[in-house]
């Protein structure tokens, strides 16, 4: 039984050492090389951060190593190096706004920060891949000894990675995932989906998205290759399909938003592909129009709708597309994976819903549950709660905040959110996080965000006070709001529509009336 993801890597080194493990636009490496480089990275981390020896080393606890990522294989080599060093990795996108990076680093306090390319973060000491490799002339015998001690002390509930996601209080949350959960994920994927004999994964998702976790570890488990697709190709879809053909990519685990781009530009009118055999998508609701476009143009592939939040290790349910769908239908999120249980909890009485068609909150039981939010006990306890079903022994279930029901065919269907979390441009966003950032601007008195699902736009309703008169027009004021938000929020969180109010309407509890605002929005659009 596997207890460490490195065992998956080592199986490849034993069985197919010369197979390409990772490739990107510029370079590629075999499994044997991957292991050697990862060990060099580990040696560097150990040498520079963990002087402990003897008995102390046997109770080594994994610590966070921040990894500044790029669209390259070096990011993945660094991940494996961190794991060999007995620590867990935390992918960081240095292009995030400064304040957000600061919040994450304050929360994380990493033992070291390493980077795949020449990224910089103000005030942070970064060790670079190139320098680590140059120094690579480590003492192999000594390193192997140290690695062996670390491995001996390893247990499968040790954390493997943390991925930061939007938090409603304005502070991002680090979702901490164990080796055990990832091993379970790839074992269940392998028995559920028909992977090609040697899968070549076309990696679309950035490494700070957990969609990419499925590329990396499914590839290790199925002895495949991960091919990183350059980001710019998603703006220039002809090149994207050319690349899929050139690299013989046969397995795609993509965000819905990336598949939409191909449909949006009617890409298959100019180029075709027969390369993909297995196409899985997740992240937001897949429009049937987009799915049908792909099915018509790439008919040889099997399509799978995947569902689940980062907190349950990527996905908890799946639906293999087994029939045609009309444009006015929606896709089911399907059935739970093996070794995962989904409970629909009645929000009124905290008991599971057992009737077809009745709505409940989607809650998850099983090995897939995250260890929690890093350094945030209270926030962990809010979402990972004692199961009301197993009252006589401790057991946590994860409350997703998603509402759903079982249809007449016994398939799970997603309906809506319980709270103010949205999916926008493939990202999971807490509207509260945007509101906190807007309200932090000096001249803003109050602000509320509403998501217009039909038009896919974040609408900001705000009330401005002292200081706002420095701007001649509302338009100038809005430009300044965006400038301010740019320091805190990633671009996909910026509001798309602005509505200024002298005073925002209140409901009978004295809170800003979101419902009334959402309604006026509809009227406003009709007038326009």
């Amino acid at each position, binding site marked *: 039984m596997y207890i460490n993801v490195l065992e998956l890597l080592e199986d490849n080194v034993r069985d197919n050492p010369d197979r390409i493990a990772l490739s990107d636009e510029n370079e590629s490496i075999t499994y044997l090389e991957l292991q050697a480089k990862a060990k060099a990275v580990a040696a560097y981390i150990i040498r520079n951060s963990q002087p402990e020896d003897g008995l102390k080393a046997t109770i080594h606890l994994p610590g966070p190593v921040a990894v500044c990522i790029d669209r390259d294989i070096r990011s993945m080599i660094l991940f494996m190096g961190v794991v060999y060093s007995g620590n867990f990795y935390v992918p960081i996108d240095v292009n995030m706004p400064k304040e957000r990076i600061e919040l994450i680093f304050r929360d994380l306090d990493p033992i070291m920060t390493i980077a795949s390319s020449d990224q910089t973060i103000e005030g942070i000491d970064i060790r670079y891949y190139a320098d680590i490799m140059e120094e690579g002339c480590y003492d192999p015998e000594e390193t192997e000894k140290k690695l062996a001690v670390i491995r001996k002390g390893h247990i499968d509930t040790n954390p493997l990675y943390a991925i930061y996601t939007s938090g409603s209080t304005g502070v991002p949350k680090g979702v901490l995932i164990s080796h055990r959960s990832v091993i379970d994920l790839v074992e269940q994927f392998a028995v559920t989906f028909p992977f090609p004999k040697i899968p070549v994964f076309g990696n679309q998702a950035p490494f700070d998205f957990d969609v990419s976790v499925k590329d990396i570890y499914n590839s290790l488990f199925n002895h495949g290759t991960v091919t990183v697709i350059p*980001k*710019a190709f*998603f*703006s*220039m*879809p*002809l090149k994207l399909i050319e690349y899929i053909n050139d690299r013989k990519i046969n397995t795609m685990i993509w965000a819905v*938003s*990336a598949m939409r*781009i191909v449909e*949006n*530009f*009617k*890409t298959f*009118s*100019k180029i075709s592909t027969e390369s993909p055999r297995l196409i899985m998508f997740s992240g937001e609701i897949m429009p049937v129009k987009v799915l049908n476009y792909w099915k018509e143009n790439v008919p040889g592939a099997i399509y799978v709708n995947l569902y689940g939040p980062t907190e349950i290790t990527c996905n908890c349910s799946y639906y293999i597309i087994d029939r045609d769908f009309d444009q006015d239908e929606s896709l089911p999120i399907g059935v739970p994976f093996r070794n995962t249980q989904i409970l629909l909890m009645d929000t009124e009485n905290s008991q599971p819903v057992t009737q077809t068609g009745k709505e409940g909150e989607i809650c998850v039981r099983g090995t897939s549950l995250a260890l929690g939010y890093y350094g945030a006990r209270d926030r962990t306890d809010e979402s990972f709660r004692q199961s009301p079903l197993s009252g006589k022994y401790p057991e946590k279930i994860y409350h997703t905040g998603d509402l759903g029901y079982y249809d007449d065919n016994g398939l799970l269907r997603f309906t809506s959110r319980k709270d103010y979390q949205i999916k926008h*441009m493939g990202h999971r966003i807490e509207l509260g996080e945007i509101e906190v950032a807007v309200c932090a601007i000096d001249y803003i008195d109050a602000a509320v965000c509403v998501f217009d699902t039909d038009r896919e736009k974040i609408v900001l309703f705000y009330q401005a006070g002292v200081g706002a008169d420095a701007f001649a027009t509302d338009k100038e004021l*809005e*430009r300044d709001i*965006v*400038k301010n938000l*740019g320091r805190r929020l990633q*671009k*996909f969180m910026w509001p798309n529509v602005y509505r200024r109010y002298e005073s925002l309407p209140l409901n009978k509890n004295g809170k800003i009336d979101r419902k009334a605002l959402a309604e006026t929005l509809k009227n406003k659009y009709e007038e326009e």
Partner: protein
Amino acid sequence: MDEIISILEEVRPDLDFAAEKALIDDGILDSFDIITIVGEFNDAFDIEINVADLLPENFNSAEAMWELVQKLKNA
């Protein structure tokens, strides 16, 4: 040209489009920006930007986009 700049500024209020020359090559515009920009151009100028027009050289600068729009308008 002004109309082009004004559309671009709506999409990305944080950028100075008069100065940027490598919007695609440097990854400044992402795929969502391109989708929005193409949609806005199609509507504003009554053109149809085709997937074959989606090349870095056509979108690296406001000027390049202007040239593309002129070409398609006259086509």
